[in-house]
C-alpha cells in the first residue's frame, strides 16, 4: 500500500476566458520513505498538485488517497491526524513566516494543538528542535522575529515548523529557489538528514534539475507539462536518458557552471522551444516539440512504460538524445 496515491486527478481554475485546466488526469503514487520529485516550468501545475496532497485544495475530479483513505472524506480526529502527518515547506521563507510572530509563537502552537508535548515541556522541545535544524538553540533565539533572520535561517525555521510535528510526508515546494547558492546544499542536506533519522517521504517540487538530481538520489522524478504528466522514472534514469522531448528541453535549458561547456552548447543548441501553447488535440507538447510528426497532431500519446519503471508520453521516445550528448560530447 502506497503512502500517497494521486488517482486520476484533474483540476481547473476559473478565469475570465473560461476554465483553465491545471491538472489533467494525473496518476502517481509515493511509497513510504521514498522521494518523488515533480519537475516542470512555472504554471505546469506542480504547486497545485502539492496543495492537493497536503489537503489545501480538493481536486475537481479524481481522488487523493493517504494511507489508502480518500483525503476528501476525512473528518474530525482522522482529518487532524492527516494534517499532522503531512507537512509542507514553502518556497519563499520571506512570505511563509508570519512577521508578527516570534519564532516561539511560530513553532509552539501546532505542537501543543497536536498534543505532542505538555505545555511546560514546550520550551525544552522547541530548543531541541532548533538544534536539530542547525539554528542557535537558545531562549534568546526563540524570542526573535523573522525579520531578524537571514533567508537561510528563515527556511530552517520553516523546516523546523514542518518537522516538529513528526510528519510522515513532507511536501517541499521549491525549498531552495529563493536562497543563495551557497545555502542551497545545506538546506537540501538538512532535509535529507531528517529522512535518514525517521521514516519520512518527500514530495519535492522544483524546476531545477540540478537541485532535483542532488536531492532525489535513489528516488523518482515525474515531469509535468501544463498539467499533464509526460515522463516518470527513476531519478538518474530520467536525467541521463530522458525519453520525452520536454524533459530534454528542460535539461538543455539549465545554465551550467562551466564557461567552455556553455559556449559549446550555445553553438550546438537546437532552435529555441520555450514558447508554444499547449495543444488541446493530440500531444499536448506538439507546438514546442523538435521531433513532432503528423501522428502527434491527431492523437494523444499515452504514458507508456519503456523500461523498468520508466514511462514516457511520447510516440517517439527513442529520438530523444541522452544527456551526455547535451552536456557537450561534441
Amino acid at each position, binding site marked *: 500500500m502506497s503512502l500517497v496515491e494521486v488517482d486520476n486527478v484533474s483540476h481547473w481554475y476559473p478565469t475570465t476566458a473560461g476554465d483553465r485546466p491545471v491538472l489533467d488526469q494525473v496518476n502517481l503514487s509515493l511509497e513510504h520513505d521514498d522521494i518523488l520529485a515533480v519537475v516542470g*516550468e512555472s504554471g505546469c501545475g506542480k504547486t497545485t498538485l502539492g496543495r492537493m496532497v497536503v489537503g489545501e485544495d480538493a481536486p475537481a475530479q479524481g481522488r487523493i488517497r493517504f494511507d489508502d483513505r480518500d483525503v476528501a472524506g476525512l473528518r474530525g480526529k482522522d482529518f487532524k491526524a492527516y494534517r499532522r502527518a503531512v507537512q509542507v515547506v514553502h518556497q519563499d521563507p520571506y512570505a511563509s513566516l508570519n512577521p508578527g510572530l516570534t519564532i516561539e509563537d511560530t513553532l509552539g502552537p501546532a505542537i501543543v494543538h497536536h498534543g505532542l508535548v505538555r505545555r511546560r515541556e514546550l520550551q525544552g522541545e522547541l530548543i531541541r528542535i532548533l538544534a536539530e535544524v542547525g539554528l542557535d538553540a537558545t531562549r534568546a533565539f526563540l524570542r526573535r522575529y523573522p525579520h531578524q533572520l537571514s533567508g537561510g535561517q528563515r527556511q530552517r525555521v520553516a523546516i523546523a515548523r514542518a518537522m516538529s510535528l513528526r510528519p510522515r510526508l513532507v511536501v517541499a515546494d521549491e525549498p531552495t529557489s529563493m536562497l543563495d547558492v*551557497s*545555502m*542551497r546544499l545545506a538546506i537540501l542536506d538538512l532535509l535529507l538528514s531528517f529522512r535518514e533519522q525517521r521514516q519520512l517521504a518527500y514530495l519535492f517540487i522544483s*524546476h531545477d534539475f*540540478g537541485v532535483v538530481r542532488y536531492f532525489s538520489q535513489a528516488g523518482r522524478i515525474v515531469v509535468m507539462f501544463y498539467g499533464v504528466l509526460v515522463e516518470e522514472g527513476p531519478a538518474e534514469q530520467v536525467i541521463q536518458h530522458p525519453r520525452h522531448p520536454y524533459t530534454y528541453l528542460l535539461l538543455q*535549458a*539549465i545554465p551550467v*557552471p562551466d*564557461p567552455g561547456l556553455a559556449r559549446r552548447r550555445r553553438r550546438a543548441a537546437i532552435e529555441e522551444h520555450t514558447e508554444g501553447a499547449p495543444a488541446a488535440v493530440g500531444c499536448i507538447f506538439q507546438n514546442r516539440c523538435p521531433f513532432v510528426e503528423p501522428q502527434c497532431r491527431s492523437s494523444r500519446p499515452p504514458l507508456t512504460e519503456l523500461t523498468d519503471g520508466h514511462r514516457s508520453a511520447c510516440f517517439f521516445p527513442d529520438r530523444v538524445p541522452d544527456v551526455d550528448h547535451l552536456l557537450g560530447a561534441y
Partner: protein
Amino acid sequence: MTVTSEPVLSVNDLTVAFGAGPGAIKAVEQVSLQVAPGDIYAVVGESGCGKSTLAYSMLDVIPPPGRVTSGDVQVRGRALGSMSRSELNQLRSAEVSMVFQAAMNSFNPVTTIGRQVEDLLEAHNRVFDSAASGRAYFDELLGMVRLPTERIWRSYEHQLSGGMKQRVAIAVALLLHPSILILDEPTTALDVLNQRLVLDVLRNLHASLGLSVVFVTHDLAVVAELASRVAVMYAGRLVESGTVDEIFTDERRHPYVAALISAIPSVLAEGLQVRPIAGQVPNLAELPAGCRFAPRCPLARAICREAEPPLVADRTGHAVACHVVNEKLVEGTVQ
C-alpha cells in the same frame, strides 16, 4: 586579457558606508573595477556581500543613509560625484540604464504597459523626433526581447508571466538608447526555461546594440553562461576578478570562489561531487580580523587571521586577494 581601450565605466577604490562614526557599516569597501566597451561584466556574491549597493553606486542611486565615503565611479572618465543634478539625469537617461531586482514587480498595476511607455516617451521627448518614432523603437525592442508587440502595449502587468515582465523591463530600460545596461539579478525567480530565454535575449541585445552590460547575480552558472569578465565579492570586498575562463578554470583562484563553484548542485554533478561551504557569511558589523573568509577557509593560516590580504594581479590581470594563493605567485604586481 589586458584592457587596452578606455573603460566605459570604472569603479575606483570605492567605499560605500551606511551610518556614521565607528558604528558605520561598509557595504562596499575599497572596490575597483573597469568595464571595457563591449564587456559583459558580472559581479557575483551572496546576499549581503554588497553587490547590489555596488550596482546602485554606478547610477548614483544608493538608498539613504548609504553614501560614498571614499573613491568614485566614473562613466567615460567623468566622476558621478562631481556631476550636477541635470547632468546626472542626462546620464541616467541617455548613457546608463538599470533593470532593478524584481523588475517584474516594478510596473504600475493599474495602467497598461503601453501607457507607461507613453509616459516615459513624453518625459524624454527630446530623445526621439516624434512620439511615433519612439513607439516604433519600443516595438523594435519588444521584437528583440521576443515579445508580441501589440499584446504587450495593451497588457496590464498581471496579464504577463514573470519571464515576460522581466523582458518588458529590459526593453523599457533600453528605450532611451543607453550604452551601458546594469541588471540586478536578471534571472532570479525565473524558471529554467525563462532563465535561458533571458540569457539568450541579453546576449543578442549586447551584440546587436553594442551594449556594455554589468549584471549582478548570486548564480555562478548564469555567470558562466553570460559573462566575459567577472568580479567576485565577499563581505563587501572584492576577492577575485578576471575573465570568465580565469575564474572558472585557472588553478590560481580564491578559495571562496572554488568553494562557491563546488557548492552548486549542478545537473552536471553527481551527488558526491558537490559540497556545501561550512559556516556563514560574517556580519558586516562584526567582521573578523584579517581575511574575511578565513573563518570558513580550508586553507587558512595564522597570517590570514591577522592581515587583510591585498588584491594581487598576475600578468594577465587576473587578481586574487588571498595570502595563501598569492604566495606562489612570484612575478605578481600589486594593484
